[in-house]
């Protein structure tokens, strides 16, 4: 069974006004429990609107969102509990830090769920560990942290609610390659250890390629592809037509494939080396490097 599922989901901004715009157009898809799903699509493709319907921040114009088989809007008064179960990390989440200490900030979510201080703090400390925040930072003001640490603190605040599904919207935007790799590695670790479901929205095809099991492609409000990451990126030329890219390494192998060489459009440099090695001519020349 899907942990989260949409059925014929449509969301229209400004319905009934001259500015009416359908951002999500009859989208049906399901997220498997425990999977790492990537969502890609260029700006304006509807992916941000889509994820906001998934935790009930936006109410669908038509169609439905099912959480563990149950329509999240069946009882609108209980929508708040959906937001604990589907945790959302927005873009630049560090802008939302506000408490006196990092620990208090991370405890804010669990506190809202009605958990006591002790339980909240225990969860907060564990969440901080997942995102790699040092114990001694927890009593500092969040505003004394570096940009990358602030972002980790904000993500820990959502993880501390122990959501069934964790949705991250561009979590690495503005981080340098080192910070990006470290953060994604930690999210991946969290995914593995907790076995929780993770949805990653990203412009970085390299990141999606490295971490996602499956990829949903949004274009003009519609879900146009949903498949394993390998299969989606193998359709690189179609993605380019939608203003998306594929990882550079995949593109290289796609070119070789188009030229008739028997290669698969793999996703990482490591895989590409394995893919190419058996095809390369022997009679190596040793470089004196």
């Amino acid at each position: 069974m899907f942990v989260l599922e949409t059925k014929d989901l449509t969301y229209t901004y400004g319905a009934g006004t001259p500015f009416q715009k359908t951002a999500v157009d009859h989208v049906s898809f399901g997220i498997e429990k425990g999977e790492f799903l990537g969502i890609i699509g260029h700006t304006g493709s509807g992916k941000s609107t889509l994820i906001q319907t998934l935790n009930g921040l936006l109410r669908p114009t038509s169609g439905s969102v099912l959480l563990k088989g149950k329509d999240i809007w069946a009882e609108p008064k209980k929508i708040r509990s959906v937001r604990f179960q589907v945790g959302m990390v927005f873009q630049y989440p560090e802008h939302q830090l506000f408490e006196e200490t990092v620990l208090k900030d991370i405890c804010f979510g669990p506190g809202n769920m009605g958990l006591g201080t002790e339980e909240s703090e225990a969860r907060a400390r564990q969440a901080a560990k997942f995102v790699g925040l040092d114990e001694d930072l927890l009593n500092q003001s969040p505003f004394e942290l570096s940009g990358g640490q602030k972002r980790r603190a904000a993500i820990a605040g959502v993880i501390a609610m122990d959501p069934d599904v964790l949705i991250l919207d561009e979590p690495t935007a503005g981080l340098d390659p080192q910070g990006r790799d470290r953060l994604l590695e930690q999210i991946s670790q969290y995914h593995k250890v907790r076995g929780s479901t993770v949805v990653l929205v990203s412009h970085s095809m390299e990141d999606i390629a490295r971490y996602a099991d499956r990829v949903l492609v949004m274009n003009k409000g519609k879900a146009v592809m949903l498949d394993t990451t390998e299969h989606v990126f193998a359709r690189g030329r179609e993605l380019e037509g939608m203003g998306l890219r594929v990882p550079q390494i995949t593109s290289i192998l796609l070119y070789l494939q188009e030229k008739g060489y028997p290669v698969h459009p793999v996703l990482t440099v490591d895989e590409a080396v394995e893919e190419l090695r058996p095809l390369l001519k022997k009679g190596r020349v040793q470089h004196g490097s």
Partner: protein
Amino acid sequence: MDYLTCDQVKFSYETGENGESHEVLHGVSLGIRKGEFVALLGHNGSGKSTLAKHFNAMLLPSGGKVYVDGLDTMDESLKIEIRRRVGLVLQNPDNQLIASVVEEDVAFGPENLGIAPPEIRRRVDDALKAVEMYDYRLNAPYKLSGGQKQRVAIAGIIAMQPDCIVLDEPTAMLDPRGRTEVLDTIHKLNREKGITIVLITHYMDEAVGADRVVVMDDGKILTQGTPREVFSQVQLLKNHQLDVPQATELVWRLRSEGYDLPDCVLDIGECVDALEPLLKSSSGDSYVCP
């Protein structure tokens, strides 16, 4: 003579109340020629943004000298002259646009310079055409995409007719299409108007198109040269946790396994061309570096 000159530049941020300071630039010397396109690479904390802010006197060196077109940035009376020559574009377009109409935003800079209205009109139109945003001149900035906003921010700089534009990670917040739009615009300004460009970026593929790449690490210049010279030093860059383009890395990995591949590959096309002659079913000649 170089247009931008850094001579043994040191810079320290004040950290504590009791005058403690933390030095982030440890004596950087660098010259940038007029009309050159320079990419400045390095990870967070390497000092690249701090260095860039010295190019229009946003920051002043705590040791050494910075000259812009021969003008000493330490001379307070030259500050306006320096800022007319060197414009700065920042990462977040939303922090740079202030007016409610695109063309008014672009006019803000020249208005501040006290330029006559008919001339402002001409400059605004030219600047918007140069970044291909003329059709949006009457739109509201907040309705534009990130890439479009960033191009409007660049138009606002161009309208001041600077000799040089320094861009501090202008594409970090943009989607792939927005990144391409902004990069194409920067290259066009460099090529057609001869504007000197200093592009600070995390993205190695953006640096590949530059005339020169300067890699910063720990407040010093780690290495510099043409993109080909810099990216051929894969091991050095990796030792400093810097990425190289995937095309470069693939060829480097296979080369280090002993396959006869060149060390000059920068992009997808070159990578394919370099690999093809080595593939068993092909009979092409081996690749020669450009």
